[in-house]
């Protein structure tokens, strides 16, 4: 019976007179972001140290989007966005080389009652971070190095309310398409969030329920995330705090017993300051992780590890659409179970052009 909700939701954003046919417009957009990085990796295991230069394409993408006015205030909307690889032309994954890698693609309706779409999309929890992560997509800088929940999901149906007094609510159902009795309900796996914007202030509360995380612990997790940022003139400060734990289907991608568990407490703080064409950026993050592994036929093994990251960077704007930048990051990890530690330093210099 839950499936009855979908046509009701669609009907909610459609007025009865939605049969007109207007113009369809399309806009192309995208960005190219490439970085030359020098990374140094050291660990407590002798002989594992590595260093070298790489050229990275940092989520460079092309996309197109558009709308058609169906009636007064009601639009059909669509978006299709793919990642391109400026460095090598292909994704570089040995198992799946791709010239274009699908990012967000959807079709839906937008009107006075909100926006509903279906397709493949970043989760509400991921999108709720807005631009608080100042080093997103950069090697050694992105918060996905120490935070779970940076997720893009397939088979999603999303509804977002209009903005009302600065508030907006979004809920995204992630359909499992699983065989058997796992994630077969409309809301067995979902991502939801409430945001508030007013002037330079941005606040968000988001929740992933049994969503397969796209970063760090890539398993089905429940995550609560709080985001805050504030801009005052040329200064912007922000932060994210989140707690994550195993979701109902956590074992599906780890071990085949129900005793496994995962707990994460992580956060990040960021600040940026514009100084003419320069933008000074700093970011700090930390996470603590407690994992209970229950292998088949063995006893439960507990593990705790910590990760700490700090990143400094400078952007220089050549134009509104184009910048060059440099950054330095340091990420340290310590595993208490096996007395293992590692440290990763990354220095990068790159360019980004938006269009």
């Amino acid at each position, binding site marked *: 019976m839950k499936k009855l909700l979908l046509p009701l939701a669609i009907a909610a954003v459609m007025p009865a007179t939605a049969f007109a046919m207007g*113009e369809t417009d399309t806009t192309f957009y995208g960005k190219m972001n490439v970085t030359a990085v020098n990374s140094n990796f050291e660990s407590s295991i002798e002989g594992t140290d590595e260093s070298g230069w790489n050229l990275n394409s940092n989520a460079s993408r092309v*996309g197109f*989007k*558009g709308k058609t006015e169906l009636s007064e205030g009601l639009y059909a909307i669509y978006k299709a*966005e793919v990642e391109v690889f400026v460095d090598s032309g292909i994704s570089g994954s040995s198992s799946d080389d791709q010239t274009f890698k699908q990012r967000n693609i959807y079709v839906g309706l937008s009107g006075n009652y909100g926006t509903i779409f279906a397709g493949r999309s970043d989760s509400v929890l991921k999108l709720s971070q807005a631009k608080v992560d100042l080093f997103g997509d950069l090697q050694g800088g992105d918060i996905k190095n120490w935070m779970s929940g940076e997720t893009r999901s397939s088979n999603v149906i999303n509804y977002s309310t209009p903005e009302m007094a600065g508030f907006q609510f979004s809920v995204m159902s992630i359909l499992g398409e699983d065989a058997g009795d796992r994630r077969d309900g409309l809301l067995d796996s979902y991502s939801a969030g409430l945001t508030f914007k007013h002037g330079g202030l941005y606040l968000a509360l988001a929740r992933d329920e049994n969503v397969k995380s796209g970063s760090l612990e890539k398993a089905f997790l429940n995550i609560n995330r709080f985001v805050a940022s504030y801009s*005052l003139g040329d200064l912007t400060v922000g932060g994210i705090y989140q707690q994550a734990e195993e979701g109902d289907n956590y074992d599906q991608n780890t071990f085949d017993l129900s005793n496994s568990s995962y707990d994460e407490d992580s956060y990040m703080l960021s600040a940026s300051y514009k100084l003419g064409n320069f933008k000074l950026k700093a970011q700090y993050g*930390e996470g603590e992780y407690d994992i209970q592994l229950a292998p088949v036929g063995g006893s439960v093994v507990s593990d705790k590890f910590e990760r700490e990251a700090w990143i400094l960077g400078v952007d220089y704007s050549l134009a509104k659409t184009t910048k060059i930048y440099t950054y330095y990051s340091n990420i340290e990890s310590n595993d208490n179970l096996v007395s293992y530690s590692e440290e990763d330093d990354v220095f990068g210099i790159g360019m980004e052009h938006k269009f």
Partner: protein
Amino acid sequence: MKKITWMALALAGSLQLTSASLFAASDECSPDVDMADSLDFSKLHIECDDNPDIVYDPKEGTKLFGKHAKAIDTYANDDADKPSVKPAQQLAYRESSKTSVPQQDLSTAKKVAKATAATPRSSVSGSAGATAAAESDNAGLAFNIREPFTTTGGPESALKGLYVQMAHYCPNGWEKLKEWSVPNQSGYYLHYQFQCAK
């Protein structure tokens, strides 16, 4: 993790201290690629989407390929002769929207209001140079204008008025995009659609 507590307090404290100017910043349209990474889907698709690359009209086929600026109708009060593009309605929609109005759209709306208010309905009299100075910030905007003519008098009189209007709106030059005629009581209106040089 105890650091979190004092860091959160520090952040909250700094927000509190600056609350006097808490709502000073504006909510502008960002580049499409940035808005595409946001939960504000209406802003991406509707409120900040007025400059498409391709416009497909099911009646006319694809109208333009390339950056297309929708034209501003300088004679919007006359229902009989409206062109197919209705920027006045689009602006009215944005103004009436409950969501925040993008700053650059408001800026455009002000330009439009200023430009249309300052332009004479028929042939322009007075110094073109003086009006040019007043309208020097219409770069990139497209306009629809018209002038009447009769079959006996010929279109020359209309052309003069149209070129004076174009010089008024676009003191730095223009590109004519389209030309068409519509009958009126005494003859025709000659319509021009043009875009000011950027």
